[in-house]
């Protein structure tokens, strides 16, 4: 007891005691919760463990980017849900950024009308709960769009109805995948070649013809392959068969409603971030650019935006993360993303709430921590450049 008192009188001792108590309390709490849960589950004889991931799901879902049917496992379902989350998030991020930058810059426009319009956009979309927006777009889509038989059509290739949006697409025949991979590789190569070209230009001041040569080479290779082995693709056009359109590339109304709502909502935040970022770059910078005789768009692209980006990127990333998390609201409109299909349907079919919620939360947590981690690296780099 005496030692505790003497520890208590020094600051380090106090800190130590407080922290030990906190740890003990925390571990106690965790132990208590786990203990209760295990006891509760055991008493009721609820199946536990992750063995269910191997079982067949027995149900189908309406959007899958990889092969999946009723006989697939829950593991597969998890992956399908995750990919559905990913596709809507990636596209959402793309459109939100596009719209957000346009609106954000429009708010700074000299044109009174344009800037007020952008202001209106931001105020409307930012102040409306996302869930209402998702439900609104969804109801609008399925109520207003026609039945497949009366689809809006564009040249027998594009169709829009209350079952979705249908676009022409292609199917790969044998060898098609190889060509697709080759094109992807070519794209990656393009990145390196153009960087090399830029370096050379900076060093020598001369325009290099690397990229042009690279491109020509690629085209020749492709043409050679196609002429030797033929085109390994065939068009896949949507057509009305029975109740619905089949073939082609299709997007369900759930997907479209979610994408529209997520993009428009997040764009309103991105617009504000962009505006604040640009305003943050000192007015002096703009004046300096002007004084050098740079035209407005060059000043914007070469001086203001690059500097603003430094301010913009951290909050922008957190908006991206929010968008990804917000895609979980799809549960309300039956878009089969991770939360709705895994933490919803699968949870109910298997009854293993603890395991499923644990997996789901871990995935989101992982994404979030990964983003924070990357952001910290970025911030550290930017901070270094500043010095």
């Amino acid at each position, binding site marked *: 007891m005496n030692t505790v008192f003497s520890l208590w009188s020094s600051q380090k001792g106090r800190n130590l005691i407080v922290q030990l108590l906190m740890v003990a309390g925390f571990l106690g709490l965790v132990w208590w919760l786990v203990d209760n849960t295990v006891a509760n589950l055991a008493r009721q004889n609820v199946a536990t463990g992750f063995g269910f991931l191997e079982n067949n799901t027995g149900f189908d879902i309406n959007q899958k980017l990889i092969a999946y049917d009723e006989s697939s496992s829950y593991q597969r379902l998890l992956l399908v849900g995750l990919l559905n989350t990913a596709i809507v998030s990636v596209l959402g991020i793309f459109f939100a950024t596009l719209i957000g930058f346009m609106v954000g810059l429009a708010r700074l426009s000299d044109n009174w009308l344009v800037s007020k319009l952008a202001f209106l956009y931001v105020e409307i979309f930012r*102040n409306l*709960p996302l869930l209402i927006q998702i439900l609104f777009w969804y109801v609008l889509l399925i109520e207003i769009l026609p039945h497949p038989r009366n689809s809006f059509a564009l040249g027998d290739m594009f169709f829009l109805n209350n079952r979705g949006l249908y676009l022409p697409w292609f199917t790969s025949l044998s060898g098609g995948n190889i060509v697709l991979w080759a094109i992807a590789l070519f794209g990656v190569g393009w990145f390196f070649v153009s960087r090399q070209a830029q370096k050379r230009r900076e060093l020598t001041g001369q325009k290099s013809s690397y990229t042009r040569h690279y491109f020509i080479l690629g085209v020749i290779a492709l043409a050679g392959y196609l002429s030797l082995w033929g085109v390994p693709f065939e068009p896949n056009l949507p057509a009305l068969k029975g109740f619905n359109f089949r073939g082609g590339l299709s997007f369900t109304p759930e997907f479209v409603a979610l994408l529209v709502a997520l993009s428009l909502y997040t764009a309103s935040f991105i617009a504000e971030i962009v505006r604040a970022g640009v305003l943050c770059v000192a007015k002096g910078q703009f004046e300096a650019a002007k004084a050098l005789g740079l035209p407005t768009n060059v000043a914007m692209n070469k001086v203001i935006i690059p500097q603003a980006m430094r301010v913009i990127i951290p909050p922008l990333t957190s908006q991206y993360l929010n968008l990804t998390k917000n895609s979980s609201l799809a549960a309300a409109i039956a878009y089969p993303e991770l939360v709705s299909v895994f933490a919803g349907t699968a949870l109910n079919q298997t009854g293993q709430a603890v395991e499923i919620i644990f997996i789901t939360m871990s995935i989101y947590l992982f994404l979030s921590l990964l983003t924070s981690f990357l952001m910290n690296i970025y911030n550290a780099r930017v901070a270094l450049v500043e010095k």
Partner: protein
Amino acid sequence: MRSILKWSRENLFATRMNAVMSVLSIWLVYVAIEGVFSWALINASFIGTDKASCAANPHGACWPFVTAKLNQFVYGNYPMGEQWRVNIVFALGAFGLGLLMTKRVSFKKEVAVLMLTVYPVLTFILLSGGFLGLSYVETNQWGGLLVTLVIAVTGIVVSLPLGILLALGRRSELPIIRIMSIGFIEFWRGVPLITVLFMASVMLPLFLPEGMNFDALLRCLIGVSMFASAYMAEVIRGGLQAIPKGQYEAAKSLGLSYWKSMRLIILPQALVVSIPGIVNTFIGLFKDTTLVMIVGIFDLLGIISFHFTDPNWTSPQVPITGFVFAGLVFWVFCFAMSHYSKSVERRFSVTGENK
């Protein structure tokens, strides 16, 4: 007239590009206004008692749905005879907020303290009753705007102090307190709110000893509050970082203890700096209350969409009308908050220039 022309030449048609943009914008405004007007007013139905009254106007709003159900939208299934209690709570809240927002009031601090301490208790007593001669009203009878506001206000009242503690914890020198704060904050910020609500609404009793349980709405409130606290903590941390190091040192050199210097010196300044962020968190929280609908609590949005299934009102216009109405209500609240925060910000930035 000439000045209008001059103004528009300078502001709308200064360059060719500008003129194109202006024309485009005018067209957009026209289309939007025309669409909204014809839907909400010209083609809309206004009187009636069931879906038949809206059948005549298939391309317009079905406002009778809103007027017929307004009581439920505001109070949920709160017993008619007891609704005066809700009204008192609303009125007191509005009065308190009014005082806080009036510039001339000198006793704002006292009002704020009352609003954060006495008001929630009073609200709880009035709304749930069970003693003082008030009949007990179960929380599953609460609904509509009432629940939306209860969740939002609770979230606000809880998340502010909790967020402050977490922010201080995150900046603490004690590594374990810091790590635990970071862990807490990152956890709640990392997971989607609906998984949190799901846990709170149906799974929580699984983690507690058998037979121990508490009210469903309360569990939702806890979930929402934890979630909001984590966001609040990050906002306040930003404010704390903005306070110059000299302030900490001066407080220390005067002999103020940690908590005193935080309460008297650091937080009063940090909170002012964070006002925009705090209000944004409030707005986010307010919007997020709609998510409780997914776990079966009838907030405003929840109760509106619940009434879509009333056989008397199944009509294609009803859902859109309902969502527009819900959107309008939420929008007014959120816009008012953001507007107020901007005016506060402006006021502080003006005094800031004096420094």
